[in-house]
């Protein structure tokens, strides 16, 4: 796979602005986590979760361009930003519950994991339902964008859930 061929299509200005935006989002949510929980580990994982979105989007797009003959387009940046938006909403839900529970004296791990599991499952089912419902009415190009967004955001929100669960079990 010739990654350089695709990297040539992007200017360093585009890469830099995207990196700055990602860092701001990652730092904002991580510092909120750190502020509310006073725990460095989940904050670091949250940082990773935000960074995971462009990595996954880039990987899936490269596979599509290389093996499925899809033409690169500026419209594909919609996948990255839509997945980031969904991931941010999921992380905010986790943050709200996690911080509220972790500071309690009779801290209940199951409460947090159950709540976040339900929230994640609901979010996953919602985006699945919406993507499939919308796919009936739009053309192939939009279906590609919608389903890749679904795939990336699903992986990331389940990653958030599993990692937070592991971290909580350690406590």
């Amino acid at each position, binding site marked *: 796979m010739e990654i350089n061929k695709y990297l*040539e*299509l992007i*200017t*360093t*200005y*585009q890469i830099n*602005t*995207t990196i*700055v*935006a990602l860092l*701001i*989002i990652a730092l*904002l*949510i991580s510092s*909120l986590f750190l502020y509310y929980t006073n725990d460095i580990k989940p904050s670091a994982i949250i940082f990773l979760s935000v960074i995971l979105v462009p990595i996954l989007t880039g990987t899936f797009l490269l596979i599509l361009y290389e093996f499925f003959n899809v033409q690169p*387009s*500026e*419209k594909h*940046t*919609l996948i990255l*930003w*839509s997945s*980031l*938006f*969904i991931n*941010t*909403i999921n*992380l*905010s*839900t986790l*943050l*709200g*519950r996690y911080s*509220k529970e972790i500071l309690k004296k009779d801290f209940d791990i199951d409460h947090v994991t159950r709540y976040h599991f339900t*929230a994640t499952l*609901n*979010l996953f*089912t*919602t*985006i699945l*339902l*919406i*993507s*499939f*419902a*919308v796919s*009936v*009415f*739009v*053309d192939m*190009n*939009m279906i590609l*964008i*919608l389903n890749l*967004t679904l795939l990336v955001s699903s992986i990331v929100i389940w990653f958030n859930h599993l990692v937070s669960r592991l971290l909580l079990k350690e406590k």
Partner: protein
Amino acid sequence: MKSYIIVILISALLISTLFFALPKTEFLVPFHEQRFDLNKKSENYWKEEIVLELNIEPKHKTLLEGKVNQAKNVLYKRLQKMGVEEIQIVNYKPTEEELENSIDFEDETMLKEYLKVIIQTTKDQTLVSRVITSTGNVKIMEPKEELKEISDEDQLQLYMEENYEETKWDRSKFRNILINDLMAGDGERSYFGVFKPGFGNRREFNEFLREREGENIGVLMDSFVIPMQVTPEMTNLFAVGIGPDKNEAEIQNIILNTGVIPVKNISILSSQQKNPNIYEIEHVQVILAIFVSIISVLLFLYQREKEEKEKILQFAFSLLLIFTISLTILKIWQIPVDLFLLIPAGILGTIFVKKMYTCPTESRIILITSVVVSALMIIFGTGYIPILGNFLLFIILISFLTEILTKTYFKHAKIINS
């Protein structure tokens, strides 16, 4: 009585905005001259492949790759600031046929590099061409001796670069050139570029102006020199006239404040019109897609989450109001819209509103982070992303209004029923 009035007013708002939001409703109203269909951008798109020739001075030979990359970045930044929807800038090797159009410089040692710029946009084609062919450099110059004895018939010589000598004052010495509308000498308002010297350069620049008080100097912009006489006031405000046209002022602002392309000259080697690549989607499809997705989310909420019926109804009412009000605003104000973007905006908006209703304890954090991500889309996004960010911020803003309206509606409907 008060409850009846409130319920009737909110119902009327919902019904009227629903009427406006639905497709083809413009045919149902008696005044056909008044257009209120969605203003689709897809009809105004054009696509062009432009090959640019960059003439680079030989002294930059060792830094050629860096200079070309810098040129790509500045060009991208300018087009993005202009609001161009799709931009692709790649290095290019021209064909023999294309090279026949190449402009030969007197200095044959000039290095030539080529870039292919692929643009798909609804913006003005001539303005786009101007933005990509200007280097953005500005130089303050001094007239050569022979220019001082110029006859009245040969006034054109005043504007030619070759009749001036360079000074050390170029764009790099100024932190920015602020475009502002000021009162011109004739009493009319006009746009001016106010030169702001960089930190540490102000005193030296004022000295430079003071030494030349009463003399003529020239400001080189876009390959033409603007001649001007140095006056004592210039030490406070050094401004160059741009003219009364707002569009011209905006274009100059983009060219002068997005960086200098480090080349001697840029020219268009060839250009080719292409068919724009647009995701064809109809207004009916957008409405159906959003409607079906809302229904499926509501059914899911009812089945899976066992939420209270009233909460689900409130959520549905609120969503319906958000989408009908948004589409009505788009239609009435004739805001140009990319129809395909309404779908991701609708999906993300639905997810946001659903979370606000189903996770009320976390709603404050969800709201803060969603607003931040939408704002970052507008500031740092490229291509269509700032447009999506605007849609999302708009939906978040409207959701406040609809939440108040929904709660009021349900409260007063309950009073009527009891």
